[in-house]
C-alpha cells in the first residue's frame, strides 16, 4: 500500500491537545477518587494517552469505537465533552448516561462512542456488528475496537476476528498492550510474546507499534483505517505500552516493583510527543503552556459542572429499562 501522507501540523497539535486533556482529566479523577468524591471504582488511562489520541485522530466523526473498562481516554479522544464524562463519574443526572453507567459505562452513541464496557473483550464482537451494520447501510463508516492484552485471551477475540476476517469488515482491532491484566503480567497468561502474530490465525495483517509514540500510532492506524475503508478487511494492531497507574485507583500494586514503573515513566508518551512537537518547531513554549492552561481550566469546569449537577431521583430508577418505558 502507498505510504500515507506525513502528518500535518494540525493533526499533530490535535493529538497533543487530546493527550493533554486526557492526562489532566485522569490526574484529576485520581485525586477526586482518593478524596472520596466518586462512587464505584475507576481505571485511569494514564500512560496510554498516545493510543486513544493517535488512533481517534485517524477517524471521522461518524466512525465508531468500542471501548473497555479503561475508557475515559477513548471517550475524550472520540470527542465527548468533559462535562458529561465527569458528571457520569459523579453519578449525576447530567452525565453521558444519566448516572446509570458510571466510569465503566461511559458512552455517547451520537459521537460514535459505543460504550465503555465492564466485560473484558466485550466490545470486540459489538465492533464487528457495527461494521456489518455500516456495510448494510452503505455508510462507509469504520470501527475501531480497543481492548487490552488481557482481553486477547478471551474467546470472543477469536470469534470476532474470524468473523470480521471472513466478512472483510471495516474494523481495526487495537490491542493496548500495557503488560498487565489486573495484577497479572501478560507473560504469565499469554502463549505468545508478540501479540500481533495472532493476526495470522485469521489471514489478516497484524502490526506491532510503539504504543508510546503518537506519530507511529497515527501512521500505522491510518494504514489500517484505509484498508478497512477500502474494503480490505480488518487489521490487528498490537500497541506496546505500559500502564503507569494501578489497575484501579487505590491498587496497592504489590505485583510490580516501583523501579519498573519509574523506568517506564521515562518513556512517558506525552513528554515524548511534546519533545517531537518542539523539535519540529510545531509548537512554542508559550503555546504549550497555554494549551495546558486551557485544558486545566476545561477539567476544572467539568468538575464544577459535575458537582453542581443534580443526582438522579430514586423515583426515576426504573426508567429506560425498555424503550418508552
Amino acid at each position, binding site marked *: 500500500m502507498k505510504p500515507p501522507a506525513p502528518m500535518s501540523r494540525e493533526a499533530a497539535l490535535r493529538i497533543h491537545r487530546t493527550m493533554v486533556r486526557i492526562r489532566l482529566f485522569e490526574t484529576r479523577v485520581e485525586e477526586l477518587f482518593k478524596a472520596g468524591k466518586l462512587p464505584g471504582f475507576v481505571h485511569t488511562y494514564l500512560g496510554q494517552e498516545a493510543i486513544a489520541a493517535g488512533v481517534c485522530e485517524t477517524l471521522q466523526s461518524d466512525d465508531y469505537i468500542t471501548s473497555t473498562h479503561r475508557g475515559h481516554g477513548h471517550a475524550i479522544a472520540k470527542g465527548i465533552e468533559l462535562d458529561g464524562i465527569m458528571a457520569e463519574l459523579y453519578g449525576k443526572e447530567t*452525565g453521558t448516561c444519566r448516572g*446509570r*453507567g458510571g466510569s465503566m459505562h461511559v458512552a455517547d452513541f451520537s459521537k460514535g462512542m459505543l460504550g465503555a464496557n465492564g466485560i473484558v473483550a466485550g466490545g470486540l*464482537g*459489538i465492533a464487528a*456488528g457495527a461494521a456489518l451494520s455500516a456495510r448494510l447501510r452503505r455508510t462507509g463508516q469504520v470501527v475501531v475496537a480497543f481492548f487490552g492484552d488481557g482481553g486477547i485471551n478471551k474467546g470472543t477475540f477469536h*470469534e470476532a476476528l474470524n468473523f470480521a476476517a471472513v466478512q472483510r469488515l471495516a474494523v481495526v482491532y487495537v490491542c493496548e498492550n500495557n503488560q498487565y491484566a489486573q495484577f497479572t503480567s501478560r507473560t504469565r497468561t499469554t502463549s505468545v510474546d508478540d501479540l500481533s502474530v495472532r493476526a495470522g490465525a485469521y489471514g489478516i495483517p497484524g502490526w506491532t507499534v510503539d504504543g508510546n509514540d503518537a506519530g507511529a500510532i497515527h501512521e500505522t492506524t491510518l494504514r489500517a483505517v484505509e484498508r478497512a475503508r477500502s474494503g480490505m478487511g480488518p487489521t490487528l494492531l498490537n500497541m506496546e505500552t505500559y500502564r503507569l497507574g494501578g489497575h484501579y485507583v487505590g491498587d496497592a500494586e504489590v505485583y510490580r516493583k516501583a523501579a519498573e514503573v519509574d523506568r517506564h515513566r521515562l518513556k512517558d508518551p506525552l513528554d515524548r510527543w511534546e519533545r517531537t512537537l518542539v523539535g519540529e518547531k510545531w509548537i512554542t513554549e508559550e503555546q504549550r503552556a497555554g494549551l495546558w492552561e486551557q485544558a486545566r481550566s476545561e477539567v476544572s469546569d467539568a468538575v464544577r459542572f459535575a458537582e453542581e449537577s443534580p443526582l438522579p431521583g430514586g423515583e426515576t430508577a426504573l426508567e429506560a429499562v425498555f424503550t418508552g418505558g
Partner: protein
Amino acid sequence: MSARAVRRMSFGQATVDAMRLAMREDERVFVLGEDISWGGNFGQFRGLVDEFGPERVIDMPISEAIIMAVAVGASVTGLRPVASMSFVEFTLGAMDEIVNQASKFRYMFGGQVSVPLVLRASDGILRSSAGQHSSSLEGLFTHLPGLKVVAPSNPADAKGLLRSAISDDDPVVYLENKRITAKRGPTPTGDHSVPLGSALIRRTGSDLTIVTYSAMVREAETACRRLAPRGIEAELIDLRSLVPLDLETVVGSVRKTGRVIIAHEAWEFGGFGAELAASITSHAFNRLRSAPVRVGAAQAPIPFSPPLERAVVPGAEEIVEAAERLMKP
C-alpha cells in the same frame, strides 16, 4: 390479499412468513445464524436467502457469542437483526452477550440507545435429543431485566408474535418449541401481528384455571377434553408472551375459578411457573380455594431414553391428574 385470508401452514412456515413480511417492509431487518441459508435446523428460515440474498441472510461460523455480539452491535447502530441460536442450549455460549450486553445496554447507557434485536431459539424435547438438546430455559431469560420473552403455541401466534418481536424496539427472546415447529394450523396469510403482553383465553371454564404456553398448550387442550366428561370444566390461558406478562387476564380467571394449575415443559423448581404461582397467590390469595399447583419437568437433565424422557417431562396426563387432585373435595 385480505389479512383475513387463512391457510393451514406449519409453525415453522408461519415464522418464515413473518420474517419475509418484515424483511420486505423494512430494509433494516436482517438474519444471522448457523446454516440459515439452508433453512436452519428446523426450516425456520427456509427460502429467505433466495429472496433477500446472502447480505441479509448471513451464515455464521459456529460462534454463538459473536452471533449475539454482532446482533447487539448492529442493533445499536440502526439495524434490526434477528439472530438464530438454533437449539436454546447454545444460547448458554452467548449468555454474556445476551445478559451483560443486550439486556443492559439501554439502561446502563441512560436510555440513549435501544437494542431492537430478536433472538430465536428452539427449545423443548423432540424425540430423544438428550441432555444438551432438549431443555426449556425461559426461566433464565424471564428473570433478567431488559429482555422480553415470547413463547407461541401455534402457527398463527408464531407469525403474529414474531412480527411484533421484530418491530419491537427492545431485545426479544423468541422461543419456538421443537415439538410443535412442524405442526400445522390455520394461519392468516396476510400481514398479522399479535401484541406482546396479551394472553389468550383458549377455553372458558368455571372449575379451575390452567395457565400455560408454548407446546404445553396442546397438552392442556387434551387435558381439558379429558376432564370435561368427568365434569371438570377448565379455563385454559395461553400466555403467549411471558415478558411482558398479562397478569390481569391470569388473575381475573383465577379469581373466578379459585383454582389454578400452572404447566410448562421446563424444570418446575425455580421455573417461570414459580413466578406465576407467587404472583397469582399475592393477587388472588383471598379467592384461592387451594394452593396453585405446578406441573413441570422433574429436576434432572433431560434423559435420552424414551421412557426416561417421558418420566421427566410432563404432558396432558399429569395435568389431568393435577386437576383431579385439585377438585377432590
